[in-house]
Each structure stands twice: as C-alpha cells, then as structure tokens.
C-alpha cells in the first residue's frame, strides 16, 4: 500500500459529525503529549514516537516515501 496522504484520522467506535474533528483530536493529543517538557525531552519523545509508529507501519517502502517527503526542503 502506498503512503496515504489523504486525511485518515479516526477513532474506532467514535462518531464524528464534522470532518475536521478527528484530525483536531489527534493534533491536540500530540501537543498535549509534549506539555511541560523541555526541548531536549520533546526531541526524545518525538524520536521515540517515530520509532514506535515506524515499527507499527512496518512496510519499509512506505517509510522510505514518508522520510523522503519529510526531508525535502528541510
């Protein structure tokens, strides 16, 4: 499966009446995860997050594509 670049957030069992809600739920959770951390701690949390999610995705062709997009223009 190629890298999905379309909106894709959802929570099983949760009903959404507005299309922006699942993405906003995710984004708030992401920022909350970093609440009150130092910059160094946040960098560590981000690194761990990438490792956890990468393993979950597993498919290295997908990860390669995501890494290329992330690095472009860096």
């Amino acid at each position, binding site marked *: 499966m190629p890298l999905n*670049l379309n*909106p894709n957030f959802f929570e099983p069992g949760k009903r959404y009446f507005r299309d*922006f809600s699942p993405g*906003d739920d995710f*984004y708030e959770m992401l920022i909350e995860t970093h609440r009150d951390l130092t*910059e160094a701690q*946040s960098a560590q949390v*981000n690194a761990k997050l990438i490792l956890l999610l990468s393993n979950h995705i597993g498919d290295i062709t997908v990860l390669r594509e995501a890494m290329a*997009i992330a690095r472009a*223009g860096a």
Partner: protein
Amino acid sequence: MLQTYQYPKFEYVKPAELADATTRRVPVVVVGAGPVGLAAAIECRLKDIPVLLLDDDDTVSVGSRGVCYAKRALEILDRIGCGDRVCGKGVSWNVGRTFFRDREVYSFNLVPEPDHKRPGMVNLQQYYLEEYEVTRARQAGVDLRWRNKVVSVSRHEDHVALKVETPDGFYTLEADWLIVADGARSPIRHMLGLDIEGRIFMDRFLIADVVMKADFPAERWFWFDPPFHPGQSVLLHKQADNVWRIDFQLGWQADPEEEKKPEKVIPRIKAMLGDDREFELEWVSVYTFQCRRMGRFRHGRVLFVGDAAHQVSPFGARGANSGYQDTDNLGWKLALVMAGQAPEALLDTYSDERAQAADENILNSTRSTDFITPKSPVSLAFRNAVLALAQDHPFARKLVNSGRLSVPAFLTGSVLNTPDADPFAGDMVPGAPMDDAPVIDNGADGWLLDKVGNAFHALYFAEDPAAVDQAIAAALGDLALGPVAVKPMVVSSRPGPVAGGIPVLVDSKGVAAKRYDARPGTVYLVRPDQHVAARWRGLDPAKVKAAVARATCNA
C-alpha cells in the same frame, strides 16, 4: 477616522414606575440589548410573553466587534424575523487563502452546499445586526428601555427583584423570570456572586476596520508568520460597505494604547497590503480573550445567555453565533414552563444542553488558538511542519486550523432525546440540528426550516399524499390535541391533499428524504428549536406522545 455608519441614538423614555413609585411585576425581564439579548426578547414576543428589555446605553455596538454570522445563526434570525435584512446587507465570501511566511500555501473555495436556504456564513458589522434586531423587537412589541441600568438584583423563590437606575432616578421591578444577556463582564453575574471559570490566553490582538478605496477581492486571507508581521498571525476579511476587518496578533508584551495609535496602525496595514492601495481607518481596538463558562446557566429564576454565560476565543466566530443558539434553546422551554405545560426541570436541560455546546465551542476555539499561537517551541515546530506539508498534501491541509467556523452542536447526550429503536443512516440523529431542504408549500418554493420551528412538529414522510389513509391522517391530527400541541405535516414526493387539511410539503428534489434517510411512513418529531427529538419508521401515536412528554420533561 472615516465613518461609513451613522450610529442611531435611541430615545430614553421616563419609565412610568418612576412617577407612581410602584413596583411592577412583569413576566420576563431581559438585561442587555446586544445581539443575544435582543434575540431573547423577540423570542419571548413570538410566544406572546410580555417582555421588558433593559439596556444601560442608548445606541448599538460601538465599533464592529462581531463580524461572522454562521448558517445556524442565520436560520435562527430567519425564525425570529431578521434573516432577510442580515443576509441582504451582509457579504458572503467563498475563497479563502492561507499564507505561510512569504508564500501562499493553499486556497480553498467554500462553494456552499446546494439546497440550503442560507450560506455557511455572512460577514456583517455588529452594529447593523443590532440595528435590525432593534427594529424587529419594536415591531414585535418588546418594551425596550434605553439608559435603564440594573444596579441591584436579588433572587427569591418565585421572582427576581431588580433596582434600576435611569437619568431620572431609581425604580424597582419584580420579574417572574430574568434573562441575563449583559455580556462577558456581566455585572449581574457579579452582583449575584456567581463564578465563571476557564483559561485566559496570554496574547493581544489588534483589530482594525479599514475602508478600501479601490477594488479588493472578497476573500478571506490568513497569514501565519508573514514577512510584514514576523512571528505572528494576521487575518483579513470583508464586511459590508467596503469595510475590511484586519486582525493582527500582537503578543502579550504589546502596549494596547500604543498599538491603537493611527501612526502605529497605518504602517502595519501598508506593509501588509504591500503596495499603494489607498485605505482609511474606521475603527481600531486591542483585545484579549478568555475561554470560560459558568458551571450552570440557570440559577433558579435567573437564566444566563450568550457571553454572560460562556466566552470563547474569536477564532471560528463562536461567540454571538452560540449566543443565538442559547436563546433558540431557551425560548420554547421558558414558554412551556410559564404556561404550566412543563415543569421547571425543563429549564435545567437548557443549561445542560447549552453547557455541552459551550464546551464544544470552547474546545474548538481553544484548539484554533493553540494552532494559531503555539505556546512552546515544539508546538511551533509541529505547526510549521503542518503548514509546510499543506502545500502539497491534503491530510495536512485538513490539520491547518485558522478557526473552525461555528457549527451547531449535536445534542446527542440530551435527556430530551428519545433514542432510536429503528435503524437510520445519516446525521439526523436525535439531538441533531435539522438539515434544511427545498420544499414546495401550496405551490410556492420554500425551505423546510422556514416551515418548522416555534412549535413541536411531526413530519410524516410519504411517496404520495393519497397514500396517507384516513386512520393515519386522523392520528396525525390528534397529535395537535395533546397537552403539548404537535403540529403535523406530511412531506411528500408528490403534491396533493391529505385528509383533515394536514399541510403537505412537497419534497420535489428528494433532498429532504435523502438528508433524513426517510422512507414512506418515516416520522420525525422535531422540537420548536429545529432539533430532532425522535424518529421512527412508522407512525405510532403512543410513541410520539411519549417522546413529546420526554422532550418536555413531562415523562
């Protein structure tokens, strides 16, 4: 500064109470003639309730303040008789552009979804809105009292006592019910010692209303971190009379008095417009905001609405828009309680339902604020990464949050709803704000939402009016005779009469049936505020009566 608007001065009239020193007892007093207080007073008159509206000033909102009125507010304004003037004067926009630093990240075109009477939003200066509502309130028979300032208030078992200051002295009043619409600082809330809790945002914003001398596109432009205002956000959008609203984020350290000076404001706007476009300043203000709400909006016979009860950040236009929905929710409940047709507990559901909506508004506007003004380096890094990806990738565009425009809450958790027993698809669940649809009524094109509201309605869907047999017509007709009247209507694909003179709405395009996932025989019970209370696949009068009882706390 230029003035495109002439402020009306409303005449103060010496209240009769001053002359005879009596304490009058009145059914309802509304305090605060802002957009929400005016709507509350008009709402009372639509229910034939005498109402006195007190305001400490004698004109409309000075400066524009509120700008964006969303679809649900426009529908409520339609129901109370102000929608056409607001939409006639207000301006619509469809194209929005989002900029990040020196480039446009993406644009969107909000082509309105077809088959709704009202668009997603119109922009209009607050003073016009208030002026139109004042006209409507007078026409509806509201006793409007300008320069009448409430200076003390006390709560009693069966009334609220008020002391009112006028240019001619003081008088006292007793109100069976008091609706408090006196704004974010709510003097009455303070007099009653009631708390409001939430979060203060450490930021300041400058708003400038400018009159453009030349053509300028009717689009909404939002800048994140632009070169002409580094590290902050800027919003530009259009109001009526060629007036444009510009909103600059200033940061907490900014000095409001300094920032308001034209010699400071004008260069900022020139840098933003980037060329020699001519403009004139009309109004400038610096504001801060809070996101907070009262624990309960009902305290005995005192009912809080609008900013007095809850406040949000301006991102998403959820202030006045949610205030209108408060009065929409409160009006019919108060009328039923005053008429002895429902217990006072129904008013607690006003607080429960609107507190849930306020929480949703606070959540959405807080999220927008946190995206627009990130509070930590990592939050800023994520925000900027979203913007960088948004240029090419749809998922990131969906995450860009420059304000989620006010939409009504789905009151799915309300005790007034009768849960579905039959399967339905789509969004018109019990508690949902009703979707609009084009209908033909007596040969004339119209809109579903203009045909319902101000009473309970039972919508019976049919292919053909001829298929509505005598028994069903009789059962529908009987609903009007219950303790709380339900007005029946048949929504049919084809025109034709129904026995008993039950009104027929022709769903000529099939939009209503589609939006409500209706089949022949489907019944929707809808509330006076145009929310779904219950629905079934067939008509069972006992179930409809039970659902009405439930929706009015009479169960």
